[in-house]
């Protein structure tokens, strides 16, 4: 898989979440995703950026345009150095929340993406990677 573009955006405030959404939208348009797919990846990015902010204490997101053969995709990696997630299975369950959210963030983001990967170590941080392919 080839990475043709990489950029990193901070996720440290509510305004940053808005900026992440706008940037992801622009990149999704750039790789030619249709309107529904754009909306899905932007919504997933919004959920994950908010998780990074609310539960991870802030972090950043790396956005990459990737190419596998003739397929182009958008890959987003959210990383924080927060408390981490002890039970990932539980965190992926809808309605599970330790905060004031609705508990749809992780599971919802997974459903809205073609690829989803999560790594977390309690006390070290969390990294979530999603991708949406054209």
């Amino acid at each position, binding site marked *: 898989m080839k990475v043709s573009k990489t950029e990193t955006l901070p996720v440290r405030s*509510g*305004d940053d*979440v*808005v900026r992440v*959404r*706008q940037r992801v*939208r622009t990149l999704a348009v750039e790789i030619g995703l249709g*309107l*529904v797919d*754009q*909306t*899905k990846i*932007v*919504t997933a990015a*919004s*959920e994950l950026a*908010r998780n990074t902010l609310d539960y991870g204490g802030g972090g950043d997101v790396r956005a990459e345009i990737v190419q596998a053969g003739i397929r182009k995709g958008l890959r987003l990696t959210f990383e924080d150095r927060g408390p981490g997630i002890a039970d990932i299975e539980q965190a992926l369950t*809808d309605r599970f929340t330790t905060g004031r*959210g*609705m508990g*749809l*963030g992780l*599971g*919802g983001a997974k*459903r*809205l993406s073609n690829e989803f990967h999560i790594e977390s170590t309690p006390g070290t941080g969390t990294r979530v990677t999603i991708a949406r392919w054209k």
Partner: protein
Amino acid sequence: MDRIPILKLGGALIVTIQVDMHDRLALALEEDLTAMIARTGARGVLIEISALEIVDSFIGRMLVSIAAVSRMLDAETVVAGMRPAVAITLVELGLELTGIKTALNVERGMTLIQARLSEDHDRGSDLEGLED
């Protein structure tokens, strides 16, 4: 601080969300709407979201919360103008807008609210009849 304007039209309050919502704006809108329902005795709140490119669980929670508080104050909330791509995404996200009525556009949303207002009116005239 930025605020989203609220218009009063008869017994209804109308809000058009045209900006990318962030935390403070969402909280301010909820407070302003609640205060205005109490002050005007509005029976319906129409929230027009056709400009919103996405509705995530944060905005969904705000809408559900506004609807719940409005209901406490005897006003019904109608969300109008959701984009089709947003509707598809919301269903996949798993977000249910509990307690919120939806309408395809502002016109149909207002029809829902007007129906409630005329019910009130009918009930009001029944009571008057009883007093005679």
